């Protein structure tokens, strides 16, 4: 049962039984008592806690090590065992005691925060290398968005992880692991703003094809596209110009591509010029639109910010509002934007943003191909700030591909922020430059960026704070 049918349907039709389906009745079975305790229980209770102190100690140190991403100190284990005792004094059994200790482990700052220590916490000039244990966490949260696994933590505990060869082998292993899909989920979701797919809410009257299934298909396309460039270590130029993407039948049909059947996603070679690269993907085109219409300004900003890494400054105060509403009715969008740009206060930024947005006007506010906007034909001609001229999305792709070093820098900065969990400062400039010059020698293959970042100075060091 698709419970968005009602929401995406004209109100008058929602209860029309010919157009919509609703259940006659719903029955529930159960509750069923599980026959065996869940697997997670046996992972926690690695021995029988009722068997005595030695086992309780083993369980508690094991849990604390996993949760805190470091070995627990004897004093810490002792305090946790006290909580087990305290619970048993309340008349509860040993597993309940473990439950109390586990609760304490999970509300402890060692679990909730990623703690890195400085020999001199108040000294901001003493830069030093992070410990192997800290490096293990930085790496696993960077690549997996999760805690280090046993192999990584063991290498760190024996101080072998910071060895460059060992580190490279671990990165290779981690990138091949299923958990590395967290990069597509979290890094790409933020960089490409596809996380906003849930909040954009296109107008169902204007875009009757929009529904949860299509939205999820859009998200999946971009996620799989990113994931394949990462895992296959493709050159990042493919983000802009790839002649393939990942589609299932419903998304392919939405794109006007016929020969894809079934709900499974698969790699599809693109023959028509209409699609190719990120900037033709419906997810990206939808999150850079308003609920009712496209916006060349939002799309222009999107390209400048996420692809070229040169975000426009915010609009100055009290600018006359942009009259985009009558688009397609009284004037074409282009005519209106050109009037707007006649105002010199606006021209400085809009002359950079708008042409990029115009090149994408062939896609409507949910990324469907079109050649008319209302009663006006779409005019997608424009030029980059340096004068490179283009006409339409395919030209824009090629024009952007000539700016590869600029795209590489934008991507480096975005990923470095993600890896470090902090904004970049002016003193990071040298590290960014050195990453870029090494990366260029590796043809901007995507995984090479991950290796460069993991070996970089900011990733491997820290300092105190006054």
């Amino acid at each position, binding site marked *: 049962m698709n419970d968005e049918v009602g*929401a995406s349907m004209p109100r008058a039709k929602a209860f029309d039984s010919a157009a919509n389906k609703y259940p006659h*009745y719903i*029955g*529930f*079975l159960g*509750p069923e008592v599980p026959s065996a305790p869940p697997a997670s229980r046996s992972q926690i209770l690695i021995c029988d806690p009722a068997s005595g102190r030695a086992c309780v100690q083993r369980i508690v140190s094991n849990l604390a090590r996993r949760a805190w991403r470091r070995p627990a100190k004897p004093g*810490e284990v002792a*305090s*946790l065992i*006290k*909580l087990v005792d*305290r*619970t048993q004094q*309340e008349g509860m059994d040993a597993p309940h005691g473990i439950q*109390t200790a586990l*609760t*304490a482990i999970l*509300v*402890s*700052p*060692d679990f*909730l*925060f990623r*703690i890195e*220590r*400085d020999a001199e*916490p*108040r000294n*901001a000039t003493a830069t030093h290398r992070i410990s192997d244990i800290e490096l293990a966490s930085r790496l696993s949260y960077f690549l997996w968005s999760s805690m280090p696994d046993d192999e990584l933590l063991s290498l760190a505990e024996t101080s072998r992880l910071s060895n460059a060869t060992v580190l490279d082998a671990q990165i290779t292993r981690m990138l091949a692991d299923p958990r590395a899909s967290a990069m597509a989920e979290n890094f790409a979701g933020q960089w490409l703003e596809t996380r906003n797919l849930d*909040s*954009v*809410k296109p*107008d*169902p*009257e*204007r875009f009757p094809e929009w529904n949860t299934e299509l939205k999820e298909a859009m998200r999946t396309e971009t996620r799989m596209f990113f994931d394949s460039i990462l895992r296959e270590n493709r050159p990042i130029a493919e983000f802009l110009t790839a002649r393939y993407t990942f589609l299932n039948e419903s998304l392919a049909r939405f794109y006007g591509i016929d020969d894809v059947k079934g709900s499974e996603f698969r790699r599809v070679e693109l023959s028509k010029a209409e699609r190719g690269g990120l900037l033709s993907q419906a997810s990206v085109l939808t999150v850079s639109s*308003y*609920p*009712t219409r496209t916006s060349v300004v939002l799309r222009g900003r999107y390209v400048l910010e996420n692809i070229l890494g040169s975000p426009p400054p*915010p*609009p*100055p*105060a*009290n600018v*006359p*509002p*942009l*009259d985009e*509403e009558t688009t397609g009715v009284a004037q074409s969008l282009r005519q209106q934007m050109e009037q707007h740009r006649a105002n010199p206060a606006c021209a400085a930024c809009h002359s950079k943003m708008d042409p990029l947005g115009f090149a994408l006007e062939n896609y409507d506010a949910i990324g469907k191909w079109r050649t008319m906007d209302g009663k006006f034909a779409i005019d997608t001609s424009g030029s980059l700030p340096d004068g490179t001229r283009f006409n339409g999305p395919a030209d824009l792709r090629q024009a952007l591909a000539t700016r590869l070093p600029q795209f590489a820098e934008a991507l480096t900065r975005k990923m470095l922020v993600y890896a470090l969990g*902090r*904004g970049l400062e002016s003193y990071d400039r040298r590290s960014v430059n050195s990453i870029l010059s090494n990366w260029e020698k590796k043809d901007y293959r995507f995984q090479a960026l991950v290796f460069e970042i993991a070996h970089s100075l900011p990733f491997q060091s820290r300092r*105190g*704070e*006054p």
Partner: protein
Amino acid sequence: MIITRKALPRRTFLRGMGVAVGLPFMEAMLPAMPQASRAGAKPPVRLMFLYVPNGIDMENWNPSYSGPLTELPRILKPLEPFRNDVLMLSNLTHNWARVLLDGPGDHGRCSANYLTGAHVQKTDRSIHVDGTMSMDQLIASRIGTETRLASLELGMEDPRQSGNCDSGYSCAYTNNLAWKSPTQPMPPLLDPRLVFERLFGAAGDLTPAEREQQRRIRTSILDYVRESTNALSRELGSTDRRKLDEYLTAIRSIETQLEKAAKDQTPVPEGMAKPAGSPADFSDHFKLLTDMVTVAFQADLTRVATFLITREGTSRPYREIGISDGHHPLTHHGGKRDQLAKVTQINEYHLSNFASWVGRLSTIREGSGRLLDNLMLVYGAGLSDGNRHLHDDLPTVIVGRGGGSLQTGRRVIFRRETPFSNLHLSLMDRMGVQVESFGDSSGRLSGLDTV
């Protein structure tokens, strides 16, 4: 077993499934509610702010007259049946929300500045609102120990956004109204079920003995966490130490709550079911959350609440009333009538939801009077004209009589540029919290209690 067409008591159903739609629960069980006022005692005054974003269509908000309220303008119309309980204030300004030397970002500034009256630092990294804390939190810090919860923060839009939400202002500024410290916002609760648990505890089903046992164990866990956090704090730099301090503060407030819960055994009101989650429909969600506030005020579980109905800059469409365009883009209407008309409709819709809550409140007795006599529900926005981002004449109405300290049923027009912070001072007085000044206040508002 297959259940077919068999009537189930609703509560059993909700408990059993853990899902299903959140149903409003109020009317039937009102008489069984514990009362804030014990016999003979004067009921306490309670304060709540309800905030709407992106300004208001002021042409349809301000009446043409001052003094006694007669016919109300279009947006305020839903409040007309209760106009004798309405005090409308005009010409209050939040100067710190203006551009000044900080450039664009009016939405980011005005919401963080609304209850703090302070300058908001333009940053998307280390957020900082100058001053000490928001006025609701100042009140909570002084009188919050008298109730189970020091304060209650509600909202209807997910606050889990990060980064920059308005021209270089952090999303934290637009996602929160309440600030416990210059760097620590109090995120609003969205889910009526979580509000219920905050009010009555997650362990509503346990026996008193079991609950007491659980409380003792939790207390020892918190002891453990406090000790290990203290030890850790000594090893860290300043930002990290600040984070840990905030964490410790949170632990202390949980401890206080646990202690209070041990003394104060206000039960879950008879017939009140735990809501199952957040309804998608605006009105349903609004009703569930405000009904929860009714309960909290009535049972004196808290005396100060803030409700960020939606956040500044939100592009939420209002399909509930047939509007598909986003709220924020609509407010930049550039004077176009059809677009402005939709803004007016959204403003009206918000008000009608608020007014139907007021309607429900108006029938509730407290002591020898009405609950409404002891409330101060401040409904308003941090922008007046959302199109031009104006910060003067902020639309503000107070519903309720503040324990007799507000002379309602009229509109008071202050001198232009009267600081909004003066209202904060005057409201704090009524909550029994006296301070010399607050934010950019220049004094107290005169004439709230007398004609």
